[in-house]
């Protein structure tokens, strides 16, 4: 498969990352922001692997993708546990 295919796929996924970042910045509640961060983390795994295919260095990029998958899961669980204990509405104008 040509490198242009992987480049196009990476660009489309990056556009999706930008759309998710809009929800992270704009999102009215904390829940929306956590969902947006989770989605960006999942899409970054896809971008990392597509970049590895683009440069023909898949075996180096895979380990980074594994670390990203772990960090994404642990980070989302930590955020949800923190806000479960703390409450969603305290603390300024974040709502």
């Amino acid at each position, binding site marked *: 498969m040509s490198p242009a295919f992987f480049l196009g*796929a990476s660009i489309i996924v990056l556009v999706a990352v930008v759309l998710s970042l809009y*929800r992270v910045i704009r999102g009215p509640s904390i829940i929306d922001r956590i*969902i947006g961060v989770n989605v960006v983390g999942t899409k970054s795994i896809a971008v990392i692997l597509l970049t590895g295919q683009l440069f023909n260095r898949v075996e180096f990029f*895979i380990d980074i993708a594994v670390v990203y998958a772990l960090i994404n899961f642990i980070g*989302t669980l930590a955020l*949800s546990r923190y806000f479960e204990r703390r409450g969603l509405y305290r603390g300024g104008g974040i709502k």
Partner: protein
Amino acid sequence: MTTVAAILIGLGVFFLFMGAVGLVRFPDFLTRMHAAGKCDTLGSLLLLGGLACHGGVTLSSLKIMVIAFFILLTSPTATHAIARVALKHQMTQQSEENR
């Protein structure tokens, strides 16, 4: 094998993009969670499966399948944890003007 990989990668990119569009366009956080959770899981699985098909039978493909299995386990778990926070704090509805 290359055709199968191209079809899988294309479908995966499509689902990832549509998940992001749903995350932007849907009115309240429960529907956003619906779009993000399912589209992300399916899109990532299809894309990683396509990359594994493209690589052939190597150690890299095995690692990619391990990542795919991990995402299959953890992405619904993370969505469930977020939804439980919203349920615990009685955040069931949002108004339409918060879009």
